[in-house]
């Protein structure tokens, strides 16, 4: 089993260890939540403060969205953990196919 190295054979020790592990993970998740809120605030503020040109705003808020989604995928959905090779492959192949559609629709039928 994958988690066999987590089990020392002594249940008490294992629980302590695991509790510490999941508390540590929780801390990472709370930090990424704070960052996600922060990125959202920046994105909304960039649009609300009328003064930046669209040429700056659009790539900038798209970048913020991508960073935020990476936090969501790797911390909230645990893709940073071991054993997520197949999920990454599924997700990124889906993204690749989807990007082709996006590219076609925004370049060929844009006008």
């Amino acid at each position, binding site marked *: 089993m994958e988690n066999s190295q987590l089990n020392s054979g002594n249940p008490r020790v294992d629980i302590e260890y695991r509790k510490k592990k999941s508390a540590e*993970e929780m801390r990472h998740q709370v930090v990424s939540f704070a960052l996600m809120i922060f990125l959202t605030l920046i994105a909304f503020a960039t649009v609300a403060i009328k003064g930046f040109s669209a040429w700056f705003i659009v790539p900038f808020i798209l970048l913020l969205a991508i960073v*935020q989604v990476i936090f969501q995928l790797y911390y909230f*959905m645990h893709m940073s953990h071991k054993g997520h090779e197949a999920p990454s492959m599924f997700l990124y*192949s889906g993204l690749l196919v989807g990007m082709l559609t996006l590219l076609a629709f925004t370049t060929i039928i844009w006008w």
Partner: protein
Amino acid sequence: MHAEEKLSLETWPAEPEKSTLEAKNKFLGFWFFLGGETVLFASLFATYLALKDKVPDSTHTLAKDLYDLPLTFVATMLLLTSSLTSVYAMYHMKNFNAKKMNTWLIITVLLGAAFLALEVYEFSHYVHEYNHTFTSSAFGSAFYTLTGFHGAHVAFGLMWFLTLIIRNSKRGLNLYNAPKFYVASLYWHFIDVVWVFIFTVVYLMGMVG
């Protein structure tokens, strides 16, 4: 380990979502489904971008005058927070605490329901104030298909959580239902992933013009 095993805090595995064959299949199959969902939503985003502001005449309202930043902001905060509360629920699932897990799931459901209520208000506002409907223009069709599909996902996620909570309310956690909770929470996070792009691409970029 097998699904029917009676477990205690001592014997609860570190990764209950992957500790039986059924759980592993569920986990893999669900991620495969999310790959498909990525294609689906990317196509809807592509359609929206191609048809944005494509209206038959000047009596139709364009994206710039339609969207309301404060409303979108509140909806975003609700959904983002509900993503965190479902993380809390999974934290308690891993610690074999069904009661706390259920409490956080109920909070998640409430936040999701509030998001959905805001979206319903938003759509009815557009229909009644701006005559922006599904059939009024290509822009309307593309907008409601994309945001409506996301809203339907939220509604389905709420039903899913509620069904799991009610069905397992007297059972406690075991290796049969823990993967189900885990997969439902993955679905919920994915809904939030899609929303991040909706508020950015549809609402914020729509306001910029």
